[in-house]
């Protein structure tokens, strides 16, 4: 396996509010490779989007990246830890190295400028092209993502486009400065199923043509199965299980992954049976459970251990990691707990 383009280790992002600290991302590890897609999956509020924003250094105040490393290997081979850059230094990575596609294409565009203006802006800034050349490139990009009549559409405002077209334009804008890593944050959530399939197709084609590394954030296991090569399952700011999409779907190890996979509706299910759901709900961010944060909802809880100790990340097979005492780490935890008061 080649070297990863982006290698994130122990990423921690916290929000410092008046009521206390929310640990939105609490030690996330992942690698992204050229031409491959990493799917990040989890329920709402598990820290998927904050992870994406942390990588770009655009976490809104009062949030802050407080720990970990995010090593980006540039085209030149030079490795940069994005976490150590100042905001001013980070700016030249946003767009030409890492770009972002958002969930809500309507809200993610300003309604006050034409799409040509909004696409061209990054081009002028990072590639140093003038107004005319930037517009020409914007038209080429629109053509590439399959917007019909791009030369006319370039002067349209976002509110004049359909939802599917807007998402295509959003992708064109993200690709405007030839990024090597594309983070797609729920890119198809707001779209109908047909458009969703078209957008996913487009992303796959672009990945093949350009060797893009894609981080695909979603809560939809179906999208993961279709798109991703590798998967990272997140729960309350942590990756609880990471591995290749085939292994995770065939032999899920973490009880949370298993529960997620069980709750996908399928056409093969017997009529009039209930869709399995995960018991309980996500804990309040200020009320994070002690021990393994999943233990109150877990069907396979090992009493006395899961409630008190945090499971470490255990490498099970090649490139596969699980955070669960069912799969290791028990001995160390027990040793640690004996020293501590119950």
């Amino acid at each position, binding site marked *: 396996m080649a070297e990863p383009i982006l290698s994130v280790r122990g990423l921690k992002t916290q929000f410092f509010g008046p009521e206390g600290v929310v640990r939105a991302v609490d030690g996330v590890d992942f690698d992204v490779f050229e031409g491959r897609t990493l799917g990040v999956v989890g329920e709402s509020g598990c820290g998927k989007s904050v992870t994406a*924003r942390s990588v770009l250094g655009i976490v809104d105040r009062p949030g802050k990246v407080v720990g970990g490393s995010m090593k980006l290997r540039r085209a030149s081979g030079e490795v940069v830890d994005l976490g150590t850059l100042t905001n001013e230094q980070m700016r030249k990575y*946003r767009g030409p190295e890492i770009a972002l596609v958002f969930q809500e294409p309507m*809200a993610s565009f*300003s309604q006050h400028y034409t799409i040509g203006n909004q696409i061209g802006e*990054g081009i002028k800034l990072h590639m140093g092209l003038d107004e005319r050349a930037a517009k020409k490139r914007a038209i080429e990009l629109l053509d590439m993502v399959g917007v019909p009549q791009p030369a006319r559409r370039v002067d349209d405002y976002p509110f004049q486009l359909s939802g599917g077209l807007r998402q295509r334009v959003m992708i064109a804008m993200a690709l405007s400065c030839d990024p090597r890593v594309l983070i797609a944050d729920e890119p198809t959530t707001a779209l109908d199923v047909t458009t969703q399939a078209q957008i996913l197709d487009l992303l796959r084609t672009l990945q093949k043509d350009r060797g893009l590394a894609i981080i695909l954030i979603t809560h939809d296991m179906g999208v993961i199965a279709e798109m991703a090569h590798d998967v990272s399952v997140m729960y309350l700011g942590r990756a609880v299980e990471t591995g290749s999409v085939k292994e995770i779907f065939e032999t899920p190890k973490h009880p949370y992954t298993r529960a997620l996979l069980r709750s996908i509706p399928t056409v093969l299910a017997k009529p009039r049976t209930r869709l399995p759901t995960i018991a309980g709900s996500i804990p309040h961010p200020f009320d994070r459970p002690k021990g393994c944060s999943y233990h109150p909802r877990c069907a396979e809880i090992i009493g006395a251990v899961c409630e008190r100790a945090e499971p470490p990340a255990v490498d099970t097979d090649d490139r596969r990691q699980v955070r669960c005492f069912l799969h290791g780490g028990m001995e160390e935890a027990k040793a640690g707990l004996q020293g501590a008061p119950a």
Partner: protein
Amino acid sequence: MIAFITRRLLLGVVTIFLISVLSFIIIQLPPGDFVDAYIAQLSSSGSQVSAAEAENLRQLYGLGEPFYVQYGKWLGRIITGDFGESMEWRRPVTEVIGDRLWLTLLLSFAALIVTWGLALPIGIFSAVRQYSFADYAFTLVGFIGIAVPNFLLALVIMYFAFVWFGASVGGLFSAEMALAPWSAAKVWDLIKHLPLPAIILALGGTAQLIRIMRANLLDELRRPYVVTARAKGLSEARTIIKYPVRAALNPFASNIAYLFPYLVSGSIIVSIVLGLPTVGPLLVKALVAQDMFLAGTIVLLLGVMTVIGTFISDLVLMWVDPRIRHQMD
């Protein structure tokens, strides 16, 4: 879009016509007429007016005729550019209003510049640095600005200007220039006198606009398109100015429409306190004396200015917000 503008212009003309009818009715509403007020004024100073003389005056101004005839005559003359004669001043209305109209417009414009010049940067700053010390300070000053009537503010400023600088604030000209014919020296005198009244008149509106700008911008700053702009690598200043500030600008444009009528009717007391030669105090006097041609002309002017102001503010809104522009088609 041209069709829209034409439609708005025609509607504006209709509105002005309705305003003229309404203003005429309102002026006629109080019991009595100019001659009654004139007689009362003269008798309070000891002299008497005979019944024949009063009848003559009524005849002269057509006061005995029915309402719609009076209105018809008035409007007919206005169309030819004759606004009638002020009964109180015994001079043509246009002459009485004279420079006051342009000075009022000038003052409105100066107040508008001050309002925008202060409200825009302070509003942006307060929103971007929400809950900072400076934000709280501006909020405090802003609420005082909204709460304190501006004629009081005018008095306070006049007092301190006199005590500290020995300057007499008031009017738009120095005493020796007030009656002089227009010259370069008089214009310079005006420019020197303009800022203080402009600031006093602008403060209330500025405080309000700061609050509006801050609230709007706080909303806009949380929108996803701001994150999009940051993700493109734009600098923070450019991100904020180009996207959320632009989106928060609409209240600035709609502000244009209200400023002129506010300055004439809403700030009469300030104008009297500061001795400003604007239209406001003239309107009050005309109404008290039931000088209907003068009052009618001023109210009509106000209506026309408001309609023009609204039209301009609509054009500016169309320019600022493409969504409005495209709804026209």
